[in-house]
């Protein structure tokens, strides 16, 4: 009995119909073998379009459906739904992409129409060989892994935990808090960053539903949505957490000082055993062996000797912990652009050129200078400060993108200088002032009222080579003041470089480990830039915060909450239906060669010693097809991608060059 195929050619407005002659194609399709019904319609995805399919199935007894329209990514689900409502198994449907793969790729009408026919014929030939399939239910483990303890990660963790779900948070640094913990005041409200952050940090640390691993990293992850297994390396702190009271004597008495490159941005020192900042969560310090006298030479041990509870353990080892989780939220944050890459700005060579993070630490009340704005010598108060916008951003030579937050934080810096050094002259060298958020433009106005000098011109050079009177002993910023059209040299005491946010240096490795992707700038790729910014192309892995792209605190919080809501939805569903596109091994045909076992990237194939045959674990299989292709006995079938289906599709594509033969159903 031959199949009865219904073909529907979508106009998609003018998206397809503007290039492909849809009426002709539809008419042509109707003349092909096995096609009993062929229509063209303006918008197949509309409810009317879908109803056409449903009605035709019922009235004409159709057994297979082909829709020629946009990408399956867009509407495969939609049309499978329509097929199912019509009474057919949804997998008896095939989509031909005549938009992204055809009408959107060319202006040549003739070629596009020809190609549309080929794609439709391919779909028709293929769909005849489709078999009904049932989706596979997968249980969602209600525990969520959140990688990264900055504000985005913290928000996501609290949202999920407060809803009663268990969360495991893994943070690479000794304390959670991220970059936000380094900041002093936050724009535009100028509220104290620590004041708004630390209560949340404490909540995370104390929450009964949150298991916090700091000074830890995810080393490996395997599995699939609802059923991941993460291996976390809990690095040795050399402190026994159960015994440590957080009194801080070890840190106080430690004789070794080391420049703190991470939290203090290189502006201050810490001890070899340390907490990064006083409000650290958890309160347990961390010992840094490369800089520890005991690890170097076997001497000292002051911390161990003086610890009142005996919590120091020099023999402590890294721990590898396996954690089963259902979903993952990556909230790994950003790195600051390295200003040394722009030698003409003098960072690293000229003492009083500071990066934005260095300046943040400087103005922070609990920072290295107690909040005083001073030069590198730690004493001199600058009388003039230049703030350079767009360092490393909007520049094809470094990062093409605009880093979104720098204008606002540059204005914030200007304000802080005005506040703490009332007579100081402040110069902001900018390209554009980008203040799109709530209260942001008003903040800019405030800075104008405070008497900040705004010079529109990208700084070309920062130098100490004096040329004109008044420049001796100063840092000179040379730029064109484009609004007056003249090159200017402005001598100042201090320069702050508003460097941009860039992706973490290891973001590519992280994305590979979690099986999703990065863009060319290293930021994690979202599923859809507008409609789904917190999901990735990998089911069960979500992203939130600056790791997705430069953004400020309100947006990071929003994304953290959004990711938590999505995960929360999956958890409350309890079960997720997975695509039945899986491989299966025909035991009779299997010769037990085991070639497939090692090829499977998902470790989804097991070997039965007793029967000497391999078997695919359906739940782990992702339907990649590697084993199907590799099996020398052709014993493995890929559901929904059988040899008959694929070969028929190829025959269909070559409709205009092959001998016409009806392929037996």
């Amino acid at each position, binding site marked *: 009995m031959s199949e009865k195929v219904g073909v529907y050619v979508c106009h998609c407005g003018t998206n397809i119909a503007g290039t492909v002659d849809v009426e002709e194609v539809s008419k042509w399709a109707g003349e092909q073998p096995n096609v009993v019904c062929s229509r063209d319609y303006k918008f197949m995805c509309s409810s009317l379009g879908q109803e056409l399919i449903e009605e035709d199935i019922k009235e004409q007894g159709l057994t297979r459906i082909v829709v020629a329209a946009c990408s399956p990514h867009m509407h495969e689900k939609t049309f499978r739904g329509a097929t199912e409502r019509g009474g057919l198994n949804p997998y008896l449907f095939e989509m031909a992409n005549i938009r992204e793969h055809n009408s959107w790729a060319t202006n040549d009408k003739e070629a596009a129409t020809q190609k549309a026919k080929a794609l439709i014929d391919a779909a028709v030939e293929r769909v005849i060989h489709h078999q009904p399939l049932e989706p596979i239910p997968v249980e969602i483990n209600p525990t969520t892994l959140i990688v990264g303890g900055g504000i985005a990660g913290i928000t996501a963790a609290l949202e999920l935990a407060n809803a009663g779900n268990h969360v495991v948070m893994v943070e690479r640094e000794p304390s959670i808090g991220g970059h936000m913990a380094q900041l002093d005041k936050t724009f535009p409200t100028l509220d104290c960053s620590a004041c708004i952050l630390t209560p949340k940090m404490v909540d995370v640390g104390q929450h009964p539903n949150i298991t916090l691993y700091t000074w830890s990293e995810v080393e490996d992850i395997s599995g699939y949505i609802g059923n991941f297994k993460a291996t976390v390396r809990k690095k040795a702190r050399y402190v026994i957490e159960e015994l440590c009271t957080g009194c801080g004597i070890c840190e106080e008495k430690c004789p070794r000082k080391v420049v703190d490159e991470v939290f203090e941005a290189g502006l201050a020192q810490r001890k070899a055993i340390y907490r990064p900042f006083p409000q650290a969560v958890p309160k347990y310090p961390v010992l840094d062996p490369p800089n520890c006298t005991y690890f170097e030479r076997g001497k000292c041990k002051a911390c161990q000797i003086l610890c009142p509870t005996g919590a120091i353990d020099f023999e402590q080892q890294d721990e590898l912990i396996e954690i089963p989780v259902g979903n993952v939220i990556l909230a790994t944050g950003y790195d600051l652009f390295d200003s040394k890459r722009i030698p003409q700005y003098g960072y690293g060579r000229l003492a009083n050129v500071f990066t934005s993070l260095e300046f943040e630490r400087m103005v922070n009340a609990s920072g290295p200078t107690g909040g005083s704005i001073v030069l590198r010598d730690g004493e001199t108060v600058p009388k003039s400060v230049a703030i350079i916008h767009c360092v490393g951003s909007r520049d*094809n*030579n470094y990062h093409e993108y605009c880093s979104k937050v720098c204008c606002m934080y540059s204005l914030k810096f200007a304000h802080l200088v005005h506040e703490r050094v009332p007579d100081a002259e402040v110069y902001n060298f900018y390209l554009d002032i980008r203040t799109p958020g709530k209260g942001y433009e008003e903040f800019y106005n405030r800075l104008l009222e405070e008497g900040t000098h705004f010079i529109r*011109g*990208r700084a070309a050079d920062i130098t100490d080579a004096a040329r004109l009177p008044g420049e001796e002993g100063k840092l000179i910023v040379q*730029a*064109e*003041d*484009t609004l007056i*059209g003249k*090159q200017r040299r402005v001598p100042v005491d201090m320069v702050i470089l508003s460097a941009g946010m860039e992706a973490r240096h290891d973001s590519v490795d992280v994305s590979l480990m979690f099986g999703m992707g990065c863009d060319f700038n290293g930021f994690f790729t979202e599923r859809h830039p507008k409609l789904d910014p917190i999901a990735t192309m990998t089911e069960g892995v979500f992203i939130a915060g600056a790791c997705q792209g430069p953004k400020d605190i309100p947006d990071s919080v929003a994304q953290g909450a959004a990711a938590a809501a999505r995960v929360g939805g999956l958890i409350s569903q309890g079960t997720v239906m997975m695509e039945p596109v899986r491989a299966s091994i025909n035991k009779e045909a299997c010769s037990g060669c085991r070639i497939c076992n090692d090829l499977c990237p998902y470790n989804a194939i097991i070997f039965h010693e007793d029967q000497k045959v391999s078997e695919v674990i359906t739940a782990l299989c992702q339907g990649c097809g590697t084993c199907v292709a590799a099996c020398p006995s052709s014993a493995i079938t890929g559901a929904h991608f059988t040899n008959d289906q694929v070969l028929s599709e190829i025959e269909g594509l070559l409709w205009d060059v092959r001998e016409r033969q009806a392929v037996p159903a």
Partner: protein
Amino acid sequence: MVKKPTFSEEVANLLHASHGEPLKTCIQCGTCSGTCPVAEFMDYTPRRLIAMINANLKEEVLESNTYWYCASCFQCTVRCPSEIDIAGLMYALKRYSIWKHLYDEDAVGPVFSETFVKSILRSGRSYEPVLAPTYIFSYGVREFLNEAHTATTLMLKGRLPILPPRIKRLDNFKKMANRIIPMGEA
């Protein structure tokens, strides 16, 4: 009907084969002008000149002294965030000005350039003494005397060519040049 190109289109055509981005991608950041070591001598800074070109202010652009002041140090080109070859633009404007003979007869830059080119086509090598008259009178009496003094000192130290050098295969050379631009007798 063929439309006459606007000035910005003319310049875009001139720069088509160059290895920088088109002028229309300029974001007017001012890095070029901020960097240029001779910006203070130009009546319009390089950035402003690009804005004027994009606005089709042909006469003002060609009459400005900006592009003749360019020393082609390429610092602007190397730093431009939009990767525009600004020094290349200055060369293009010089060529435009010379082709259309839009310059003042007593302007040193264009006259020097044309004389230099002629001397090379004549002998295949450059010869400083023939270039002297193009500039030696342009900077005032004191500078003329200074330059004469410098020239004499150079000559005494054996650093000034007396006789004009020539390449051996000069005939072929001239024929070669003719295949690019038919120049007749140089």
